[in-house]
């Protein structure tokens, strides 16, 4: 062993150096895009409809000749909403040369933030996780690209103000899933309560979030809330609709954050008539009547296939389309700057920061992403359950931008 050690060391170094000299120069004209997905884990109800949306959009782009002539290869990996498989998937994306990665799941965003930043690959996290990642100077490679929980909280309070005609002296209940994501908007909502002079009471629903009879009863009959802001995940939104209905609380005085706002939640709560009046918040357009969706249906028709059944779940399917579309748009901006298609994560990052006026016929909010604002304005729409479907209540809006900005700044200063 001792005698052979130098020999082995020499061998190892030789292997390493040859390996290192061969490694780069793999850049082809194919654009690799990573898409983490959860079709089997804790949030599978989201993944089974959202991921096909992203797949179909990329297929449509490729069918139309790719992005400025360059094809996109979308690699979808299911991580079961667990961190270790997501880390493995991320390393695989890196190996395949991905220039942008869709990072699904709050814990996974946290786990990958440092790596994305070090490897200079932009990661997108629409609608969840990291309110503080809006600050592009602090997290240069994280792109929320849709309203974060902070912006959603601000928008929900503003919507309550519109509905109640002023907030002074009103009672607002905040019903939330008791995990970090559920608590994330609390500081923003609390500050708004002092600013607007309304009374705020928070009601925690412990995981797994299917038992909230006591909280709902409290909201309706002891606290007598004037408005309820709900921030729940998974099965719990449908339970909350059922329970609020049971205690006789009017659902038109409820607004849910973006993860309690799909067709599936309404159906699981006992169907559309039962949930009549329930308000939901959306970061992507809802419904089937958008040009890009018609093009996808057209593409399927040309292939002689029926449109996929996932399209009927318009909330999540459309989010998948929007998510992929914003990424493709960033890639497009990057390729415009480098027409040979040999783009890197840094180019795509700059591409994201050029996105403006990209609405895809109303499906995507009019985002304006800048080097400072990776959220793009924090725009949402509110829909209401009305006559068996989601009816649009408001146009794209954001609210209390100054308060949200202050919290982003404070989070940045804490480090």
């Amino acid at each position, binding site marked *: 062993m001792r005698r052979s050690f130098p020999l082995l060391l020499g*061998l*190892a170094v030789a292997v390493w150096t040859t390996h290192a000299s061969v490694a780069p120069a793999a850049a082809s004209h194919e654009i690799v895009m990573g898409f983490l997905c959860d079709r*089997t884990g804790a949030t599978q109800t989201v993944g089974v409809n959202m991921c*096909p949306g992203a797949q179909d959009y990329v297929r449509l782009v490729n069918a139309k000749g790719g992005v400025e002539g360059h094809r996109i290869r979308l690699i979808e990996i299911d991580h*079961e909403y667990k961190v270790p498989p997501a880390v493995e998937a991320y390393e695989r994306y890196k190996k395949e040369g991905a220039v942008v990665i869709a990072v699904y799941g709050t814990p996974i965003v*946290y786990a990958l933030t*440092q790596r994305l930043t070090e490897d200079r690959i932009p990661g997108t996290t629409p609608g969840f996780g990291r309110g503080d990642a809006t600050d592009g100077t602090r997290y240069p490679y994280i792109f929320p690209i849709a309203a974060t929980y902070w912006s959603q909280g601000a928008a929900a309070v503003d919507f309550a103000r519109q509905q109640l005609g002023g907030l002074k002296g009103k009672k607002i209940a905040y019903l939330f899933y008791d995990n*970090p994501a559920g608590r*994330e908007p*609390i500081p923003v909502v609390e500050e708004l309560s002092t600013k607007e002079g309304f009374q705020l009471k928070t009601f925690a629903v412990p995981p797994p979030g299917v038992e909230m009879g006591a909280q709902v009863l409290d909201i309706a009959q002891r606290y007598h809330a004037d408005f309820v802001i709900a921030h729940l995940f998974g099965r719990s939104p449908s339970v909350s609709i059922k329970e609020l209905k049971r205690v006789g609380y009017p659902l038109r005085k409820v607004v849910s954050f973006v993860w309690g706002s799909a067709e599936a939640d309404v159906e699981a709560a006992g169907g559309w008539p039962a949930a009549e009046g329930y308000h939901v918040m959306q970061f992507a357009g809802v419904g089937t009547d958008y040009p890009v969706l018609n093009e996808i249906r057209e593409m399927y028709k040309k292939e002689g296939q029926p449109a996929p059944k996932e399209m009927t779940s318009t909330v999540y399917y459309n989010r998948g389309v929007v998510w992929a579309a914003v990424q493709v748009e960033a890639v497009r901006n990057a390729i415009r700057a480098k027409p040979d298609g040999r783009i890197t994560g840094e180019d795509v990052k700059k591409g994201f920061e050029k996105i403006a006026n990209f609405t895809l016929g109303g499906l995507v909010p009019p985002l304006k992403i800048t080097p400072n604002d990776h959220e793009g304005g924090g725009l949402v729409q509110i829909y209401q359950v009305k006559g068996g479907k989601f009816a649009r209540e408001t146009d794209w809006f954001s609210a209390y931008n100054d308060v949200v900005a202050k919290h982003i700044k404070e989070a940045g200063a804490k480090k």
Partner: protein
Amino acid sequence: MIHRECGVLKTTYEADMALYPLPIARWTVAALAVLFFLVLPFSVHEYYLSIVNLIAIAVVGALGLNILVGSTGQISIGHGAFMSVGAYTAANFAVRLGAPFWLALPLGGAMAALVGAVVGIPSLRIKGLYLAIATLAGQLIIEWTINHVTWISGGVQASIEMPRPAFLGVEIASQRGMYFFLMFFVVLAVVGTLNLLRSRIGRAFIAIRDHDIAAEIIGINIFRYKLLAFAISSFYAGVTGVLYTYYLGIANYEQFQITVSIDYLAMIIIGGLGSVLGAIFGAIFVTLLPIVIRYAMEALGGLVFSQASVLNIIPNLRLILFGTLIVFFLVVEPEGLNRLWRNIRNYFRVWPFAY
């Protein structure tokens, strides 16, 4: 591991307790060391090292849990929480006081050991499924505490960003650097466990597992050793949590939930309770199998299903296959992969003869 003597020829206790039962064992270990420290890290792409890194973290945790469950016979469903105790302790020391990893890591382990010993107190009166529920309570209480006490968790988001570990002033950030960092602790954990199990303490653990009343009668202090088992096992869990935190660069509460405790239990049961090699096998199996299945499905799935449905089928079939394979291996050999490995060795020992 792969070597085998041709009979039991030991005449002294020293020979029986030796770390290397045969001279060839030394050579096996040397060969493995060369493979893992010189050949492997410099010959494969970083992606493959990242998989090895995940396995390495799992190995440390599985070894620790195996000391408690496999060797001492006390069950714990709280190891995910003990990992979070280690992770948050180390993260707080590293961020608030700027502690380097060689200080933060043992501190994280020590704090986890302390908490683990407290959670282990019910083991003095209750056993089996009852103890499982008691440790489950520990898991839930620790989860709740970290989730709600912002002084520990660093804010409502319950996550603390961890600086990269630095060795001799060089920051360890790449997967290759991490590989050496993690491997060092895997070696420490393996050697530590091997030595622990052949020491006085380890023998006491095994005696308690086999029959605790008999163990007490022959003079083993049950109180002391059961709590010691919990403490040592939790120390490993805490170190696992710290390694995980350094690897990901963040301590986050959602990385240590109850499913993690269950995953680690699955590892040691599949690998083989009470053996060091079994814990390693289990960690490799549980981490690697889903990845291997996915590659196989990606390569072959397109032949059977349409391209659009493959995307939906792969993740689901992966779960089904994973579950089926676990059942298959446990039916073939209920004592785990370690026993299966021994059976294979025993078969080839006299091969091609029947006896």
